[in-house]
């Protein structure tokens, strides 16, 4: 079971990574990051079956952190949207070189 869960977790992580790499919408990119975090959560839970309950505790903390990140991320995206009227990251190129 552990191996399957870990493989699934790794696949989800890679899907999230690819999502960050190929998507242009800031919110979708952020969702992909959340997917990565939750993939890790899956690993934690899978390991906790063998290593003890603290794995589930870690998941709680990760969820809290993810929520805080989500709040801050949404706020920043709103702030950017007010300036650019878009959340397509291709347009955010004021800072370069």
């Amino acid at each position, binding site marked *: 079971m552990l191996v399957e869960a870990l493989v699934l977790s790794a696949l989800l992580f890679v899907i999230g990574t690819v999502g*960050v*790499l190929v998507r*242009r919408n*800031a919110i979708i*990119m952020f969702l992909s990051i959340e997917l990565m975090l939750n993939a890790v959560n899956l690993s934690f839970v899978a390991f906790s079956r063998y290593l003890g309950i603290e794995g589930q505790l870690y998941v709680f903390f990760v969820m809290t952190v993810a929520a805080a990140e989500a709040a801050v991320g949404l706020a920043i995206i709103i702030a950017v949207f007010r300036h650019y009227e878009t959340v397509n*990251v*291709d347009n955010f*190129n004021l800072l*370069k*070189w």
Partner: protein
Amino acid sequence: MTEPSRIAPEALEAVAQTGSGFNPLLPGLILLLPLLGFLVNGILALIAGSREGNVLRSAALAEPDSEEERVDLQHKEDAPRRATHTLPTWVGPGVMLGAFILTTLNFLRMLGSGLQDPTVITYWSWMPTGTLAVDAAIQLDQLSMIMMMVITGVGFLIHVFSVGYMKEDPGYPRYFAYLNLFVFFMLVLVTGANFPVMFVGWEGVGLCSYLLIGFWFQDREKADAGKKAFIVNRVGDFGLLMAMFILFATFGTLNYQEIFAAAPTTLVYGGGVVTAITLFLLLGATGKSAQIPLFVWLPDAMAGPTPVSALIHAATMVTAGVYLVARASVLFALAPVSAAAVATIGALTALFAATIALKQYDIKKVLAYSTISQLGFMFMAVGVGAYAAGVFHLMTHAFFKALLFLGAGAVIHSMHHALHATHKDWDAQDMRNMGGLRRHMKWTWVFMWIATLAIAGIWPFAGFFSKDEIIWYVGTSAPFGPLYAVLWGMAVVTAALTAFYMARMMILTFHGPNRTGEAEGKHLHEAPLTMTIPLGILALLSIFGGWINVPQSVRDSFFGGFGMLPMSSWLDEWMAPVTAAADAIRLEQLGAYAYQSPVGGGHVTWGFIATGLAMAVVLAATWYFRSKDVPTAVEQGAPRSGFGKILYNKWYVDELYDRIIVRPVVGISRFSWRVVDRVLIDGTVNAVGAVSKGTGWFGSLFQTGQLNTYAFILALGALALLGVLIF
């Protein structure tokens, strides 16, 4: 790793007292005085600078295009003298005088004590922990004492000269602040008891040089000259850093005493390590002392005020490389290849710079190339193991070259006033516009001729003794006999060329008809006393300075007044404790070869030949140039063809450097800027230039947009990192 000595300063001084009888008198104060002067003048400069910000701004709009116009601009403004302009007059030269007096007292004490081992005075533990323990310590020995005498003595005279020369400049306090700071760092350089302390001074003098070259920063070209000096010196500094690094890796310490004591047993004679160390040291030395390949900055450094050229770019800072080789004489003695490289570079530079000097028309450029050439002589000397001879020439050169530069400064000063009086748009530094100045500037003319005879090597002037000693040693050195024969030949040719171009300079400047113009000629005048008195003192030194190191055989001959001189080879004996270790190594390794002249003849014979040759050349040049009708700069312009053109353009070295160094570096910078940032951000394939279509396709992968590109690079990096770790 050796544990450093942790002796308290008091204890060390006590050792110094009982051990050798040399009791230094407030040596720290010698360093502190110029620093104090810097602080006072620096504050005054800031006050003046912020007050005159508007003046500077309006001056910038006027865009003066020569140093004299700049000086003159201030004449017109004729601002009332304020404390910021009167105080530096006393503070600047004052601290130098104090430092000079203290140095002299210490010098006399050392003279009387018969000091053998260097006196190290530790102030505090600078880098106290770890395997590298470095103290903030100064080392007083014969070498550093001679250097200090030159720096404070000549430095004081140049400070006094500067009072007259720079008085009208709005940057007057700033000028003295920089100059004092320079002296402080130069003293740190020569007194440091270990490489890091020396490096502090090394970097510091570079910084001051850079500040002073760009002193008239309103002028773009002059500001850029400072930049050039800066960049070239970076290369040299890197060499020095590397040398220090290998030294530390080898010895576990960077203190002179410990390294030089351990070197003969730790290092293999002629081995790779010591050769690498010394070659890196040599790279550092060539940077600071303007030798091939790093000499290009010095002629451009003439953009600074002329007294600065005299102090920094002739008398003191540029000799740091010579000092470094002499200081590390033990290491160079252990590395015959590096020593030969030092001598070869010196000889090549000497000859090369002398040829360029032949065809220059700018009076300061002639002196700049002459300086490079003379530094080449010093390199030859320390390269062949004649450390005392190198230091001897360093000292006499400081006298007569400072005199020449200051004299040139007086000439330029006068020329400029004359040209300005009639608003003539001519170059005040071009010798073709001068001629016949001896009628207007009698004292300057006399003093400069003395310096010219000295540098040409004519008996009984200082240069005769120091230069001919070097030529003698080069001709008799070992172990690569034929090489030294060639170097010796180059040295003799260079000496003749020196006599020639110096005579040419003097004739063009002071003799023949005046080419400045009718109206202008009336305004030519002698410099004020604050400027001529230092010239006079330097002239005396240029005459008598050479008499301190006359070999016994010469002393007994005609050249020494048949034994009338009070001492023989005084400097050699004085320097003996410093060079003893290196001499011992050379004697042990090269005993069979050392000092066998390949050309025969003794000191006296060669003295006759050399002075005869120099006099012949001077006379020939005088005759040649006096009879020649010299066109003015406007009539002639730059030489258009032939060898003269190559010489006039300094062998095209600047252009060469631009092609092979500056452009590629700029190119690399631009390349990485584009590739690392732009291509990966915008993915503009074309930006890279001629890349194949395959790369283009690959590049287009990056063409997606920035944030994703960043994430992409991040992910690639992550893959690479994991790949390295796991596989």
